[in-house]
């Protein structure tokens, strides 16, 4: 077995230095359309072309609701006047239920946070990005985050997917089984607003219908760094993204 030890050592350190230093590698994030000072027929056609109503017209031009964006790229590819595009990944915001209370879990959870991942009915992309958090590049253990298979040990619930009718009950039961204090991070457009799937006869319009959501991470799927930021926001170790919406 010594060959594996040597192999591991030879590979060296791959981990990103985020959150101390921003990650600049290519391909870590799909980005989002940015608010663009644009009016008239061009703006209207872009807003009308958005399949999930993530774009809207405001006093500043075209406004973007990141929670609803599913990265279809229709507002930049093939558009007469493409919207501005922003890269980055620190998108997590405090959810509606997180605003009324101190969103920090507090010092006891500084370096040992156990996370229960609940897939409440997504397409598998969000879940795969959550899995990447354990790969050597993101290595969530170095930040004191650990995945747990049981709600009894969990401090934070990470929900992905539009909650399907079949998972609604299981999600609620898992939340109730978690000891307090507990926080919920909803990741992905489906968990925030139903995404492409909901609301429909079988999918709801987000996890907030079933459990109180403290932190919202937009993206479809949110890249691993965005989920990591959401977790850091949930325990008060990183400020949430600025702005409303």
């Amino acid at each position, binding site marked *: 077995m010594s060959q594996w030890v040597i192999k591991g050592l030879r590979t060296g350190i791959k981990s990103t230095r985020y959150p101390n230093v921003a990650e600049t590698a290519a391909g870590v994030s799909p980005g989002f359309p940015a608010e663009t000072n644009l009016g008239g027929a061009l703006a209207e056609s872009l807003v009308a072309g958005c399949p999930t109503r993530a774009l809207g017209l405001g006093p500043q031009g075209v406004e973007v609701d990141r929670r609803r964006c599913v990265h279809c790229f229709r507002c930049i590819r093939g558009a007469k006047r493409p919207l501005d595009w922003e890269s980055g990944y620190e998108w997590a915001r405090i959810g509606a239920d997180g605003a009324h209370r101190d969103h920090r879990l507090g010092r006891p959870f500084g370096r040992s946070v156990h996370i229960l991942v609940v*897939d409440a009915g997504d397409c598998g992309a969000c879940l795969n990005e959550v899995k990447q958090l354990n790969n050597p590049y993101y290595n969530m253990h170095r930040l004191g985050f650990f995945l747990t298979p049981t709600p009894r040990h969990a401090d934070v619930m990470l929900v992905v997917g539009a909650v399907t009718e079949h998972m609604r009950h299981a999600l609620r039961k898992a939340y109730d089984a978690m000891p307090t204090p507990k926080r919920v991070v909803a990741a992905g457009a489906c968990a925030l607003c139903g995404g492409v799937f909901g609301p429909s006869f079988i999918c709801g319009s987000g996890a907030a219908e079933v459990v109180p959501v403290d932190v919202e991470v937009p993206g479809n799927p949110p890249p691993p760094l965005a989920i990591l930021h959401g977790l850091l926001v949930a325990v008060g170790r990183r400020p949430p993204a600025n702005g409303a919406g």
Partner: protein
Amino acid sequence: MAIELGQMAAQAQTRWPGRVRADTEQDADCAYRIECEPQALPEVCNWLFSDLGYSFGGLVVEEAARWELRYLFYGDREQGWVHVIARLSADQTRVPSVSTLIHAADWHEREAEDLFGLVFEGHPRLGDFVLHNDTWQENLTPMRRSFDDRKPAAWRTPDSDWKPRQIVEEAGAFLMPIGPIYSTATGPAHFVLETIGEDVIRAQPRLFYAYRGLEKIAQGRAAEDLLLIAERISGTSAFAHSLGACQAVERICRIEVPPRARVLRVWAAELERLRHHVGAIEGICESTGLVVAAAQAAIIEEDLLRISGALTGHRYFFGLNALGGLTIDLDDCALLHAAWQVKAAVSRLSELERMLSMSSSFLDRLEEVGNVGASDAREFGLVGPVARASGVSRDLRRAHPYLGYERVDFDVPCETEGDGYARLRVFFGEAAQSARIISAVSSSIPQGAFRAPQVSLGAGAALGWVEAPRGAALHWIRLADDGVVDRYRIITPSFANWHGFRLGAERFAFQDFPIILATFALSVHENDR
């Protein structure tokens, strides 16, 4: 036992005189239609499956003025596609079951029973399947046209005391329910494992926790928006599924895809296959507790995700496919650079394969574990790498080439043992072949348009097929006059392979269960839709 297609019509008509009407020629989509009366359906299907060696593709149910049941079969290249079609009057809902003769049709008929309310006479296990009985009222049939998909359906208050039924009743029998929330980061699935001592006697998955009703919510949408849904059937094989949907619509509307777009699609599809297989290999290493190997595979997977993200804007190729081509052109230099990065990643992958093949404690967990024999694999209609590890070699890229795969040089790795190690070797072998294809096409990408200049949608129906990373995926699409989706039937490889999963899991020790599950590389999202 291949017979000439022209003779097939004559044979079918002499075997079932007056009850079967068969085309004498293939149509433009390589499809060959046999219309038969419902009572002859099982015999005709079994003739194709057992006597002529066709693979069972799936069942498409369409509700119109009459019910139309379409059983899809595909064979080798010269055998083409066969659609066996039976029609029922609107008030008739009973039809003889095909699954009594072809077990691969089992889940297709259960699904149609659950979602359309059709009754398949002679089928032993209808009932609780897609719609769980503890959550849904009886007799709801959401796929019927009369059912409104926008309103929440009247569901029951879930029954907290629901318990799986115990089948094994011997002394020492123990029932172990697992899921739907289990392990650290897995899709929702429930397993009913019945054990006596260490051995799993019966392993029945209860799925469809991630049932998102995609076939239903697709109805009434514009064909372009259909791709949003197709990409999200399974996020880890998004490009393959959107490609299947694109090909169906392109067939209906006779859209000519430019040569450059076809090659770029091959490029993306193979990169996705490579990335999926690396993920599967990582899962297998992790299930055996070999963390360094799992970490090595995870590094490669993340590298490939970053290559995809840097090149196309999205790590999972969302928003890349468009009707008639791609949404963006990919830069030739960037493609060459990416191909070079892929090559570097794959050389690390083959080093990993070499090291794994010498780790005896790892091999002990995989060899002779989760065996699926060739006849079982065929009987259950397994597809993709899982079937190829059991000696069932049919690959749609070879059998019915699309995108110009007939001009691409590649091998289809095939093993015969059918155990966990055979599946691992197939994953490694296919990953290497995908890298070979990427490298070959990168240096010879034709110039020209990346998208058909104009796309005019019309009415019609067609089948799109694609060899997705997990196996054969079939997309049946019917468009109405205005290009709006009338019916979207998605037949996914995971649906076939979950059906056969218990073949591998039963008869083996309980502690092997997670490893067997990992070697099947199943996706609940792709299965549940």
